[in-house]
């Protein structure tokens, strides 16, 4: 049972009551979990002391999933049931994914996002990712000795809405409270910036296993501001392995390979790539299932030659990010290298030549993202006293728009807008008496709808009969601090308000998530009710804590009557929170949330006034 809060109102929690929060780097190749203890961020290793968790999930016939090194060791024996690089499939349809032909899986095409048929049933990439997250969550809870209040999960900055939503759903499925989705290069900038007290304009070049991001940030004391970001959500170290693989197939004149041989050879290709980082030549030697031996050797020169255009492919987005930021390479004070793939010498060379300076490699490129995420989680959980925290201003990577006549895109929120951002646009009917209007929400930079990513389609019904062009339909896009979009539409002229909110979807509805959650509980013989009870209690405690703090800080903003209402709602929640009825706790929490709405709005107004007053006083001192 959750402990009852016994500290005085407004007092910050004692050190032993620190809220346990973690940062998770859910990577294409490896995943990590990190946390801040005694002011220092560190990666939490497994029981064998290994910091990384290979992002490899192997499904077993009994329905269980094995994650990490054990799966990695078996990937060539059981390629169909051993899912590697699942991040590449998050929020992606079958036709969006490159190298489908060399991936040894049994794909199932599903609307919005592909699925994989395994011996444990058909799995969505969201479910596969959730298995990885569950292992990290357990690792953290065992190591920290308590339940987590939440996690910051990192995503490539260039992830679109569907990929972000899929990541958040995976976290939910793993039973994690997502404090924030944080862009990977931004997380790296936090870790680098704090470590080195960096000030000025920096670029973060982040080449991971499957994604490439370039972000330009302005760092100044207490502020991390992303000015522009660009990238390629389907370009990473995996593609370099793929090039070696293709070279081997061609060089050894191999017949079409089965799933096992394919996986085996891909593993060998990857090993060769890694070997070439420190050597001039790497062997590729393996015995195929036919008994045939592949025995080749690849030189650094050959490797550079066959991967040269991949390296070049990262420079296009780099130029674009600089242009969007209105800067040139001369304005960049340093280039922070992130992601295991930046170890390749040809990448180091190309980045050094482009920026005309040596890249910064003083942080472990595998860990820096998780460490930055842990630092941000510490701030978001409220563990840092005011003055020691920082402000993070991030942007949306891709423009958002709506389909108009002729399959063209009307851009509503431009890329690199600072989030959260809201933008509205008015549309009208084109037929007399038109009572419905459909909308198609897309993301991307191209002018044609067919070249952009389709996020959602929805219809606004109940428009009152009017002449063509008389209706005024206002469509509002809101992007939150996680970079997630919600859209609403409203007819304004008649005051008859019809509105609809869509959550961009890749085919997974809330009901699907509920079902997956249910299935996984049944599997773990977990008790759904106990889970809901525990979660609602944690939420309720958090809310009581937040309200108590707010009353202590800003109680003068409300009348005694209003205060009485809030205190009554608090008492009502306190009365049920120790009980066994999870619904009663939820209802009481909702009621308290409603009771504090006006108070919350006034507090925020007061905050803005104080910000300006503080500045004026500061100006007077000058």
């Amino acid at each position: 049972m959750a402990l009852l809060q016994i500290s005085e109102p407004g007092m910050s929690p004692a050190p032993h009551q620190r809220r346990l929060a973690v940062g998770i780097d859910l990577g294409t190749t490896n995943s990590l979990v990190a946390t801040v203890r005694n002011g220092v961020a560190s990666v939490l290793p497994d029981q064998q002391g290994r910091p990384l968790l290979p992002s490899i999930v192997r499904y077993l016939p009994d329905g269980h999933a094995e994650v990490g090194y054990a799966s990695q060791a078996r990937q060539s024996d059981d390629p169909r049931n051993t899912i590697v690089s699942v991040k590449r499939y998050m929020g992606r349809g079958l036709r969006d994914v490159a190298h489908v032909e060399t991936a040894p899986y049994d794909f199932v095409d599903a609307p919005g996002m592909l699925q994989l048929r395994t011996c444990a049933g058909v799995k969505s990439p969201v479910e596969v990712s959730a298995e990885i997250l569950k292992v990290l969550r357990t690792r953290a809870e065992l190591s920290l000795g308590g339940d987590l209040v939440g996690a910051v999960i990192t995503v490539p900055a260039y992830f679109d809405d569907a990929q972000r939503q899929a990541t958040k759903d995976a976290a939910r499925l793993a039973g994690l409270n997502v404090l924030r989705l944080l862009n990977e290069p931004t997380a790296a900038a936090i870790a680098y910036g704090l470590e080195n007290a960096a000030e000025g304009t920096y670029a973060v070049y982040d080449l991971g296993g499957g994604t490439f991001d370039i972000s330009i940030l302005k760092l100044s004391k207490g502020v991390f501001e992303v000015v522009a970001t660009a990238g390629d959500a389907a370009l990473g170290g995996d593609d370099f392995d793929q090039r070696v693989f293709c070279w081997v197939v061609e060089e050894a004149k191999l017949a079409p390979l089965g799933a096992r041989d394919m996986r085996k050879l891909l593993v060998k290709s990857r090993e060769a790539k890694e070997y070439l980082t420190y050597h001039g030549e790497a062997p590729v030697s393996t015995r195929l299932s036919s008994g045939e031996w592949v025995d080749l050797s690849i030189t650094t020169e050959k490797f550079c030659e066959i991967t040269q255009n991949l390296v070049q492919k990262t420079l296009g987005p780099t130029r674009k990010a600089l242009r969007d930021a209105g800067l040139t390479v001369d304005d960049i004070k340093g280039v922070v290298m992130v992601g295991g793939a930046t170890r390749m010498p040809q990448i180091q060379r190309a980045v050094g030549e482009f920026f005309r300076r040596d890249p910064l490699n003083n942080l472990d490129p595998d860990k820096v993202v998780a460490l930055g995420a842990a630092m941000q989680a510490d701030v978001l959980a409220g563990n840092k006293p005011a003055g020691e925290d920082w402000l993070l201003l991030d942007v949306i990577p891709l423009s958002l728009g709506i389909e108009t006549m002729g399959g063209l895109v009307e851009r509503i929120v431009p890329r690199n807008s600072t989030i959260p951002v809201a933008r509205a646009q008015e549309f009208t009917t084109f037929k007399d008496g038109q009572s419905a209007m459909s909308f198609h929400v897309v993301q991307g930079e191209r002018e044609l709808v067919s070249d952009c990513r389709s996020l959602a389609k929805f219809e606004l019904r109940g428009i009152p009969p009017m002449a063509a062009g008389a209706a005024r339909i206002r469509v509002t896009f809101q992007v939150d601090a996680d970079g997630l979009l919600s859209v609403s539409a409203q007819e304004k002229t008649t005051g008859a308000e019809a509105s609809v909110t869509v959550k961009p979807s890749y085919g997974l509805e809330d009901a699907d998530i509920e079902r997956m959650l249910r299935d996984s509980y049944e599997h773990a013989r977990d008790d759904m009710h106990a889970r809901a009870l525990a979660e609602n209690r944690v939420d309720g405690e958090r809310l009581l804590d937040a309200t108590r703090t707010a009353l202590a800080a800003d109680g003068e903003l409300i009348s005694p009557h209003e205060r009485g209402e809030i205190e009554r709602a608090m008492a009502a929640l306190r009365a049920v929170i120790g009980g066994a009825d999870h619904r009663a706790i939820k209802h009481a929490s909702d009621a308290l949330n409603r009771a504090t709405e006006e108070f919350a709005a006034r507090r925020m107004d007061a905050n803005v006034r104080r910000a300006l007053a503080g500045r004026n006083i500061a100006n007077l001192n000058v």
Partner: protein
Amino acid sequence: MQNHFELFDLAPGYALDSAALEAAYRGIQARVHPDRFAHASDAERRASMQWTTRVNEAYRTLKSPVQRARYLLELNGVDVAFETNTSMPTEFLVQQMELREALERAGDAKDAAALDALRGELRAERLVMERALAEAIDARRDYAGAAGLVRKLMFLEKLDADIDLAYEALEA
């Protein structure tokens, strides 16, 4: 509701102390940003997102020379009407056509140096117009005249965006 200048406690005008704007923006963000309320109640998180959204919008508007002018004219009851008012001085239109032709030539020839030159020319042109705008709005309060200048600037901004696209095509 406060207008954007009031929000940041700045004197309304085209000439703007950009350091003061940035300081005010960051000062408010430090107090209302969703990162400050990640562990707070739903009500506070909602209020935080609404405020941050508004502050971001106000900052974006005032930071951009074109949007700031447009907004000031709006506050003074003048609609720039870029979409509907398409009548432009012939001389300006001819110059625009020449610039567009130059852009097309540079794009076709994949000539980055020509794009750089064109961009330089355009930026210089914009600066001249921004100075004229400050003069029209702050000194003469000639809002109708300023609206014409804003429309021209919006043309140039569109061309600037098209130069970006030409660079991208060239790098692809």
